[in-house]
């Protein structure tokens, strides 16, 4: 069995010369749920964009068992579902249905199967019946769920979420946590929400200034308050 995500000695420099990642290595087993924490600008989002080859740096990245290289990109993108921080970016189609159907339609699946996958994905996130709604008019919590449905409809192996709870009210946040808890997928969640980490993600990876500075069980790392504080984090 292959690892869900493997990153070896990845370094990346933005075109303006800013070193965003330096020598990052990371392995995630299938069905592991991992938190990616660290201050703003630590390189979390940059790392995530490397997992599906939107950015490419020096080093080796494997996702869903495939090396992330040009020839594999479309397969990798079907296996790794990336949910962006702002649901508005994710939802670019006129209706909710169109958005959730985008992935399967792009894969040219037969129409019946597309419909079935959209229904399934919307049901999983508890939004069935929203298909014909205009995503523009939904609440942030609803948009977030739809955004997750848009990648679930591709039936990915790994779910990567960037700041899933930002901007949510407590109830929406709670129901999102429950939803993520019940999904039987490998998960990598970049977040500042330490409560979410403690509750949902047994493993924690701390990044700062483009490097991984700690990687271990959430329970243990949460106890090391000095470590958390030195990287701009707080014990919940």
């Amino acid at each position, binding site marked *: 069995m292959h690892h869900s995500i493997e990153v070896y000695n990845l370094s990346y420099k933005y075109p303006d010369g800013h070193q965003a990642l330096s020598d990052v290595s990371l392995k995630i087993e299938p069905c592991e749920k991992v938190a990616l924490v660290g201050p703003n600008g630590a390189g979390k989002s940059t790392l995530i964009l490397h997992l599906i080859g939107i950015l490419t740096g020096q080093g080796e990245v494997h996702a869903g068992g495939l090396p992330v290289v040009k020839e594999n990109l479309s*397969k990798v993108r079907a296996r790794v579902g990336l949910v962006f921080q702002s649901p*508005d970016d994710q939802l670019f189609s006129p209706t909710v249905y169109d958005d959730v159907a985008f992935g399967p339609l792009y894969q040219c699946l037969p129409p019946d199967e597309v419909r079935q996958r959209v229904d399934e994905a919307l049901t999983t996130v508890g939004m069935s019946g929203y298909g014909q709604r205009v995503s523009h008019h939904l609440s942030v919590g609803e948009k977030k769920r739809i955004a997750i449905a848009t990648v679930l409809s591709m039936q990915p192996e790994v779910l990567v979420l960037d700041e899933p709870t930002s901007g949510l009210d407590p109830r929406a946040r709670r129901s999102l946590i429950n939803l993520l808890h019940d999904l039987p997928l490998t998960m990598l969640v970049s977040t500042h929400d330490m409560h979410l980490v403690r509750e949902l993600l047994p493993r924690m990876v701390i990044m700062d200034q483009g490097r991984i500075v700690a990687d271990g069980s959430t329970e243990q790392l949460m106890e090391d308050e000095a470590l958390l504080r030195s990287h701009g984090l707080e014990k919940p």
Partner: protein
Amino acid sequence: MHIHFLDPFREGDSPVHSLDPRVKFILVVSFIFTTSLTPTGAWPVYLLLLSLVLSVEVGSGLGIGYVLKRALLALPFVLAAVPLVLTLPGDPLFTFTLGSLTVTITQPGVERFLSIAFKSWISVQAAILLASTTSFPDLLTAMRAVKIPSLLVSIFGLMWRYLFVLADEALRLLRARQARSGQTDRPGLKPGGSLSWRGRVAGGMAGSLFLRAFERSDRIYMAMVARGYDGEVRSTPLPALQPGSKLLLSASLLLFLVLLAAAILFWS
């Protein structure tokens, strides 16, 4: 995560950079007027204007190559003047037949076209020079100082400010689409979808970008109102022009006038 948008401004400490932006703005605008009002075929005057702009390019430390490369951008617009070659009456240079059509290229037509092309090339260089040696906020101040309607100036300013935000937003949308453009492991299915479907998706993206820009403008307006905006843009008064700048301004304007007068006297 920002798009690396091209800001034409290049830092520098040349005399051209440190010149008062108001003076620079007036000089460039009057230079462009002089160039465009110079009659057709006044080649010696064109060469003088060109050498003027080239010497400022050298003086600004930008280098001639930098400006010339950018000036190529203006080339496609010159095409609008191509019909002149065929339509202006005068001595035919040569004639050829295109099917049942007889096309005559006239000498005044060619001369007019070349003049227009040359003049626009010089003017674009002057504009590039201005934009590369003056930061955009300075440029706005200069526009305000020469009494361009303040509403127009605010629109330029807001446009400049939010162009980057909008470009970032478009980039994020494109990334989100890219992230979901996958291929199944099932054999025989080629990813991509039909052309019309992809067109519809792109249309949806453009639509939502527009909607968001529209909503953002509402929020920006509210934020402005919240801080006391009442439709009137106020700015701190500018210091008076230095005597040196004044002298440079009047001398250059006089030079332009003389050039223009000579050109009109001898060539029209």
